[in-house]
């Protein structure tokens, strides 16, 4: 634990991620308005434009569109702030789900030899299909929406987790202390949980972190291409999708969410790097 706190990548990455999570959580309190509110009068305004808003109490106050507005007059700043919620939530959900499913399958594949070949063939097949295409294919199968997108991103990630877990299981299986546990009569399920599973925790935390980052990117790509989350719920990806056509004249549509996205994923990747350097003994020696 202490070692984690000493690694600069971990600290900076975790701090930024925490910051963004808080931003998403406290979105309504951060000077935003309804991100879906359409306002034809204020379409495509440059950042800094002001306007009057009627508050709940009937009073009129000044509101500044800090990031400008999009082609439907929606406030980009509010959309970006609310977008943090969905984008980060998707990242976490995908990571958690991929790890959970991948861990289970990986343990089975590593320990039950006759299932191993069969499972790994399917995993190889899944991995042969490039991730984006697979995700796109899955999305095309159903209505667009949060669940569909999450599942679409999880499916290509599962084989990668399975591969990692299986490799760990196979190597731990050869360790003398596992053989010793067999000779003292420890049954296989207990063996897996007690001796094998703990060795998967650190690598899975690292991989899960990277999966979170990549999930956010993939969601952004899907939304950008128009096959992700529908625009009523803002995500950084679909905000950018909106801004495509008028990019030359109104680049702010793309740059603000783009920068946030890059920032978030960068922080997550830094966190992952730092975690890997501290948690995974194999990488500890490498600078």
């Amino acid at each position, binding site marked *: 634990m202490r070692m984690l706190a000493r690694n600069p990548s971990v600290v900076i990455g975790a701090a930024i991620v925490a910051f963004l999570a808080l931003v998403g959580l406290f979105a309504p309190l951060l000077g935003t308005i309804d991100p879906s509110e359409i306002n034809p009068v204020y379409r495509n305004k440059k950042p800094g434009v002001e306007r009057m808003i009627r508050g709940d109490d009937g009073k009129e106050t000044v509101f500044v569109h800090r990031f400008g507005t999009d082609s439907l007059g929606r406030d980009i700043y509010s959309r970006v702030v609310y977008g943090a919620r969905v984008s980060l939530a998707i990242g976490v959900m995908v990571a958690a789900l991929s790890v959970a499913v991948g861990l289970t399958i990986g343990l089975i594949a590593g320990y039950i030899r006759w299932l191993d070949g069969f499972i790994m063939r399917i995993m190889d097949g899944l991995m042969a299909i490039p991730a984006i295409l697979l995700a796109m294919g899955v999305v095309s199968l159903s209505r667009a929406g949060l669940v569909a997108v999450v599942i679409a991103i999880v499916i290509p990630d599962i084989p990668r987790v399975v591969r990692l877990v299986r490799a760990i299981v196979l190597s731990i299986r050869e*360790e*003398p*202390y596992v*053989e*010793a*546990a*067999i*000779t*003292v*009569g*420890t*049954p*296989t399920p207990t063996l897996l949980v*007690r*001796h094998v599973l*703990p060795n998967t925790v650190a690598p899975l935390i690292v991989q899960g972190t990277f999966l979170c980052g990549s999930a956010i990117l993939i969601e952004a790509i899907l939304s950008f291409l128009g096959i992700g989350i529908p625009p009523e719920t803002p995500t950084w990806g679909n905000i950018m999708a909106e801004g495509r056509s008028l990019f030359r004249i109104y680049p702010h549509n793309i740059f603000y969410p783009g920068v946030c996205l890059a920032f978030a994923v960068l922080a997550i990747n830094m966190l992952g790097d730092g975690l890997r350097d501290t948690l995974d003994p194999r990488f500890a020696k490498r600078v």
Partner: protein
Amino acid sequence: MAGITSVLDITNLTVDLPRGSDRPHAIEDITLSVGAGEIVCVVGESGSGKSVTAQAVMGLLPRELTASKGRILLEGENVLEATPARLRDLRGTRMAMIFQEPMTALNPVMTLGDQIAEVLEIHTELSEPDRRQRVLQIMRAVHLPEPERLIDVYPHQISGGQRQRIMIAAALVLDPALLIADEPTTALDVTTQAQILKLVRELQERRGTGVLFITHDFGVVAEVAHRVVVMQSGRVVEMGTREDILRRPQSDYTRMLIASVPSLVPPKRAPKTGQVALATEKLSKTYGTKSLIFGRGRVVRAAENVEIVVRRGETVGIVGESGSGKSTVARCVARLIEPTSGAIRIGEVDVAHLPERRLRPHRRNVQIVFQDPYRSLNPRRTVGASIVEGPVNFGLAAGEAMNRARRLMTLVGLSPDALGRYPHQFSGGQRQRIAIARALAMEPQLLIADEPVSALDVSVQAQVLQLIDDVRRRFDLAILFITHDLRVAAQVCDRIAVMQRGVVVEEGPTVDVFAAPKHEYTRALFEAAPGRNAMFGAAVAGAA
């Protein structure tokens, strides 16, 4: 001694360890010398600093270590003050080094010829055909078969012994004045080791090379050394001729070390008449690979028709080199792998082909102590948890199991309070004791000891062997002792079986087999044992 020119002269050498290490210096105040034409063996246990000394001479110290004091004179030139370019000039031409693991020390993607030729490329202006001639010449000098063919072959295609010869060839091709050998035979089989030692002696005599030979094996010292330097914890403890050190050691430490080396002469032991605990019949294990599409298979007979009998109170040894099948037999008996055919009777029951569920109740009768003390305990669990795991599996209440664990810790010479600690807090020898305690916790009839002391220092080795012997007597255990070390086998085993390529070639009471080996392989094995002609060493375990 007079008249020999000094090739290497180390005076007051001190190498510092980085801050935060358990001692300030890796080596301190080392003074030793190597003359032309003499072999100086540096002996010590792990952590003695012998390798650091060798690396310092070559200028190959790892980044964290710095030579802070002293002088290293190579043919009169101070190596510590040489520039990196000068050091590079000296390496390969005036001083050369060979290492312990020939497989990893050779570049896997370069041909053998190229690796030797590289030395010539760096330091000479020879043309390519000339280089080739020199390479072939040196390959013949190290007695490599078919040099014309091997020159274009890769390291993984030849054996360990041959690889070490290649290393020696590359080291000696430019006739350096000093050869540093860092445990060059430790990773080799006994018979291969004997050949390499012979080769080193031969080349060294012919060319007048001074050799600094690092080793931990006193047998090797007895075989090749002219002079000996004994190191402990970074300091030189004693120095002298081979005779002086082996016969008349002055310091307590040297005396203790030599006393810990088991003698090659087995004591007379009364035959054991206890109940038969283990009897294997025609035990065989075959590994075959068959390609699905192309049909051809490669069959490896790891063990063939092995018959071993061990009685209670008796220690039976299986002796062999790598690939002999001794580990395979041990793993079959422990049912870590299933034999292809044959019977394994533990008491009355044949456990050879029992399915796991029916096998489990019988597992308590056979326990095993593994070779590597650093990997046989789960690093994430306390040693107490590791010891009680077995008894709890078989229904013993947790409290009772802990009591048993405490009793056993005392028995193996460790404090019961240490049960709450983790494996990394113990030394290698202590971990082996814990492994023994874990095995005993199951109250087995048969204890398999698979090279239990091979990874331990010689002084610790003696203690663990003593412990195993005590335990055998106290619990009337049958012990199946696997080892490649003839000395250990001589002192510890009542009977031995010698295995070669999966087959038992000879077996009988230890005394008889050692005195009059019948099979030619057994004879070759004993011939190869280093230092067998030197009279030193002690009886380690009692012959009761």
